[in-house]
């Protein structure tokens, strides 16, 4: 069954796959996670604030992003971001963004909706006594969030946030639809150029599997340690 397969193609393209493809994927994952969590926390706070308008805007944004397929959002932002940049900076022509910048914007904004739901659950899981005590001590809203509520919420939701990060890592493979060279895109290019689909796709699947497995194992250990620490 594996007789006429040439697994040597993997060895020959390892540098390209990992230096170009995997660095793109990992950089995108880490930066989008940071941006997504920050923006997501902001959205969660807007949702839980007393102001009806803020709450509605955040709610609509989250619902919109969660109703759309990621593939569609990737297309949207790839073609739209330069125009948005032009509108934001008042320039005379669309701002040129490359593939990486546009993917970063896409994933940050998309995943922020999911992160915001996680952080919202986290903030709501903090007992009412905490912000009440903070208020009694004379802390402002900003100080309460910064020093009392958010640190606890973040620690509580850390395993879920990390699981969502693993999901993000897997979702980055979808930039394939625009021929953007992430890890899967790189594997695909080699596969099509050399006609070695089976070898490259099996290898790509294995790499994704190993990384995700190790990561989710790590998250499970972390979860056990956190549960114990309570």
């Amino acid at each position: 069954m594996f007789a006429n397969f040439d697994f040597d193609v993997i060895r020959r393209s390892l540098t390209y796959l990992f230096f170009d493809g995997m660095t793109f994927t990992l950089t995108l994952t880490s930066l989008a996670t940071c941006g997504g969590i920050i923006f997501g926390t902001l959205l969660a706070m807007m949702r839980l604030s007393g102001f009806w308008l803020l709450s509605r805007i955040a709610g609509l944004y989250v619902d919109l992003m969660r109703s759309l397929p990621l593939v569609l959002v990737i297309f949207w932002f790839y073609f739209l971001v330069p125009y948005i940049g032009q509108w934001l900076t008042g320039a005379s022509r669309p701002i040129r963004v490359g593939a990486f910048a546009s993917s970063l914007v896409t994933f940050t904004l998309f995943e922020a909706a999911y992160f915001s739901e996680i952080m919202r659950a986290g903030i709501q899981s903090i007992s009412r006594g905490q912000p009440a005590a903070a208020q009694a001590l004379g802390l402002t809203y900003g100080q309460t969030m910064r020093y009392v509520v958010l640190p606890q919420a973040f620690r509580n939701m850390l395993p879920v946030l990390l699981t969502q990060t693993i999901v993000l890592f897997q979702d980055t493979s979808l930039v394939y639809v625009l021929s953007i060279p992430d890890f899967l895109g790189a594997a695909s290019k080699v596969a099509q150029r050399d006609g070695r689909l089976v070898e490259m796709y099996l290898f790509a699947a294995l790499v994704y599997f190993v990384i995700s497995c190790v990561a989710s194992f790590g998250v499970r250990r972390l979860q056990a340690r956190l549960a114990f620490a309570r």
Partner: protein
Amino acid sequence: MLNCSIGENSMKRLRVMGLALAASFCAAQADAEELSGTLRKIKETGVINIGYRDSSIPFSYLDDNQKPIGFAIDICLKIVDAVKKELKLDKLTVEFNPVTSSTRIPLLANGTIDLECGSTTNNPERLKQVAFTNTHFLTATRFISKKSSKLSSIEDLKGKSVASTSGTTNIRQLTEANAARNLGINIIPAKEHAESFLMVETDRAVAAVLDDILLASFAAGSKDPDAYVISSDAFSKPEPYGIMLRKDDPAFKKVADDATSALYRSAEGQKLYDKWFMQKIPPKGLNLNVPIGAELKKAFAKPTDSPDPDFYKSM
């Protein structure tokens, strides 16, 4: 005394130099003010963005080090030289951006690329959205299939699975022919030309519909070139390839037109053609052996950006 006179001369010289500098500064400012569109963008950013293709051999493709090379890329680099001279820039950085058949026009419109250097057909419909510079090749839409499938005419494709690349004139012509002649073809869209050919190679589709020069390159570069045959039946007349630029930008178009016109008419243009079509090309040292056709020779002698296939026949 001597010191004073030297001092006075120096002062005069300084004043003259200062005035000259001021004048040239004003002139430079005026130049930048007069520039518009792409030329202004290039002058302000010092960067020109070129869109390249993954697998449009030999026009624009990636070599073994994943660097873009090709006939159209070389032509574009000549245009870049002309832009550099026109804008009097010391340094002009060239950045390469990958594009596909379906992303090339939106990316040109939104400013991600300034020139699209590949195998894009110049036709009246696209001219509503973009502009093209002088034609660099003529090619008709044909299909390639394995000799064992014994397909010779378009009618033979009835009821079969046929691949083509999305966003091309080829898939459009295939779709229209399918509807007009009621062929019931199952059209499989692929993301890139290499993928379309791979469908035929792996027997997923019985034929791939693309420009005949691209088909020739794929067949020649495949593991078993003799197994394939390109149909003599064509979906279209030989249509012109052009390098794409943004619409409504006459200044930039003039620079591109002048550069390509000068190139095609010179001996260098002929040498460039031979380099990619009559000699061994990277990465596998393939020689496509496609001598310059009569119509293309005329189009090089009298460079034109006409989208009309009949124009080239009557030249």
